């Protein structure tokens, strides 16, 4: 009722001419600005796409409840990742970031939706397109950017780089395609062994889905009922090879064969969240592993050395951006259902930009690691020993 009154008042104050041109008189502006948080809905229910099921009688629910608080948090998180990746793009082109840099923009709904459905005490491992997960698993942006620029303030002190970032219960960041999948099952084995009701989320891409070790892992995870959620982030391209050219079966959610699977709209954060909740419950109840395919899309090429337009059209990229962008999708949902205002979200955008700028400032001014770091962390819990450099006279001391 109040909403309607305000809207009516606004229209009246604007006057007919203003309504046509969209101009708002000063009085109307004051009225609009005085909307308080009590004006927003506390939550809204959304219909989400039904998941395709494999060896499952029932799937996740087809509706999801989003609270205002959750929405704002998801929005800020996704926007932070988006801007962080774009900043990395910029720094890479300025040659301040070197080597490999695989960007995650476009796929934000996956890591944010996933994290919303699991606990910080659960475990997660992914491949090299890992900056988003490094953030959602608790690493500050400045430490991620400083790791990319190879500074001592980086989350791995500059020793890891883009593909080797770690956090508590986050095992990287892995450079060898597919190798993280057995590792993830091993972490799940530890979860089961320790009996603390924790699970491991093990991610891989559509390219890695054809690795033999993935199938070896499916077999053992199913055999031993490991609490492992296998997640295939299908962004349609393994480097420059489309899924049709790489896989005899592109139904990645069925590739686990005897392992139940679901295919999820990976551009819809709520879809990802509900599916992950469903999958986590499956694992925690002792039923063994489950497989989720997230259908998603990366705006950038495979890495910074790939423009990403030789194997796909600009039109395709543009179409995904305009019709399926995960951040736009959330924003529209929130604004159209009175969970937030456009201005409020713009304020968050401004805040995020500022945070990213500050983080980039840190990442470009923090010093590189001291030379002594070269020889540290070779062995764990070892008394100091000598490490050979490029010739026999250059010797470093390994202090830790």
């Amino acid at each position, binding site marked *: 009722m109040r909403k309607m009154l305000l809207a009516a008042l606004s229209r009246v104050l604007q006057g007919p001419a203003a309504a046509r041109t969209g101009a708002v008189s000063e009085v109307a502006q004051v009225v609009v600005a005085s909307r308080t948080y009590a004006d927003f809905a506390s939550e809204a229910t959304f219909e989400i796409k039904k998941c395709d099921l494999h060896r499952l009688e029932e799937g996740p629910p087809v509706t999801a409840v989003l609270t205002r608080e959750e929405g704002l948090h998801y929005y800020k998180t996704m926007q932070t990742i988006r801007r962080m990746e774009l900043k990395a793009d910029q720094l890479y082109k300025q040659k301040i970031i070197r080597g490999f840099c695989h960007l995650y923009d476009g796929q934000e709904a996956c890591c944010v939706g996933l994290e919303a459905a699991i606990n910080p005490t659960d475990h997660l491992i992914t491949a090299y397109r890992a900056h988003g997960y490094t953030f959602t698993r608790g690493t500050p942006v400045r430490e991620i950017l400083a790791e990319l620029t190879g500074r001592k303030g980086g989350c791995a002190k500059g020793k890891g780089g883009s593909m080797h970032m770690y956090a508590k219960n986050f095992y990287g960041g892995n450079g060898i395609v597919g190798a993280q999948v057995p590792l993830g099952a091993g972490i799940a084995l530890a979860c089961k062994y320790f009996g603390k009701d924790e699970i491991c989320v093990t991610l891989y891409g559509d390219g890695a889905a054809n690795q033999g070790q993935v199938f*070896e892992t499916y077999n053992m995870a199913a055999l031993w009922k490991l609490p492992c959620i296998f997640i295939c982030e299908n962004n349609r391209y393994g480097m420059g090879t489309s899924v049709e050219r790489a896989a005899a079966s592109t139904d990645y959610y069925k590739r686990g064969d005897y392992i139940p699977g679901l295919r999820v709209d990976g551009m819809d954060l709520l879809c990802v969240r509900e599916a992950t909740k469903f999958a986590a419950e499956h694992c925690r109840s002792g039923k063994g592993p489950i497989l989720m395919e997230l259908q998603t899309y990366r705006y950038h090429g495979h890495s910074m050395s790939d423009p990403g337009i030789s194997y796909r059209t600009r039109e395709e990229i543009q179409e995904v951006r305009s019709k399926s962008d995960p951040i736009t999708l959330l924003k529209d949902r929130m604004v159209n259902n009175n969970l937030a205002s456009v201005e409020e979200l713009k304020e968050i955008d401004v805040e995020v930009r500022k945070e990213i700028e500050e983080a980039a400032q840190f990442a470009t001014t923090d010093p590189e690691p001291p030379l002594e770091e070269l020889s540290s962390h070779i062995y764990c819990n070892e008394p100091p020993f000598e490490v050979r450099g490029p010739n026999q006279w250059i010797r470093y001391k390994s202090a830790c």
Partner: protein
Amino acid sequence: EPTEPDGVRRPRICLIACLILREKHTRCAPQVTVRDALNQALDEELERDERVFLLGEEVAQYDGAYKISRGLWKKYGDKRIIDTPISEMGFTGIAVGAAMAGLRPICEFMTFNFSMQAIDQVINSAAKTYYMSSGMVSVPVVFRGPNGTSAGVGAQHSQCFAAWYGHCPGLKVVSPWSSEDARGLLKSAIRDDNPVVMLEHELMYGVPFEMSEETQSKDFLVPIGKAKIERPGTHITLVSHSRPVGHCLEAAAVLAKEGVECEVINLRTIRPMDVETIEASIMKTNNLVTVEGGWPQFGVGAEICARIMEGPAFNYLDAPAVRVTGADVPMPYAKILEENCIPQVKDIIFAVKKTLNI
């Protein structure tokens, strides 16, 4: 101190006396095979730390392909002793992941030849992770199994991996010869917070050695990174690891009759290598022969020679260092061919005499 080689099986006078007198004898050091030493070490470490577990092909219900894990599944059950399918890359990755998450797995390769399928997990996932993560993620895993030659198993089942694994920073690589080595190194490996590759030898599993009371204690550890002088000598240094250590001792016994006293060093650890012990020995004997089962190129002996040249011991050498190795061929099957591909006692004696110019 006895000058006879430790590990060569010799009936002790008192043991014979006991047999004659039909008395139960407890004072003699018992004879323990390498297999039993490994088995006991596994048992004790499984009991000591419940995070320790064993996985591999046939380790549980079959009692181990080489019976190293005999009786352990019966005692500890499915949770601690896990039979895996034939999926080296998969189960090795699972072992490494479990270690990252706080367990202390022992990953058995039926032979190290099969570890080649999983070598990416050993090197890229296990060895390098502590460094890449700047100390955030440690990987306390043991990879063990028989390495090198067997008898008549052909080319694909006879390779020595000491040089390949010894090449990589972040790994520790040990190579036991005697039962004492096997027991002490396995315990050290399991208690070490780093990935350790333990290269056992199939033909040593059944060989008995005397083990003193001290070496039988539950906390007996052989330190990783320290070589052992099995036989002191003055004329030449023989450096070896694994089964060839026994051949060196046999060669030393033969040479002793001709007045040549060999100092036999059992490396025990390939990486980090105890170069200091070798250097000190060469500075005493002035001559070096290295003996290994693996191929000559880029091998353990090659590394020892290079390191000696870089250190103080080079100036003490009276002759160039010499390597005795496996023949530079894939292993043939026929007995006469296979025998001539493995360094024999006569090959070691010949190398010593050539070096000493006698």
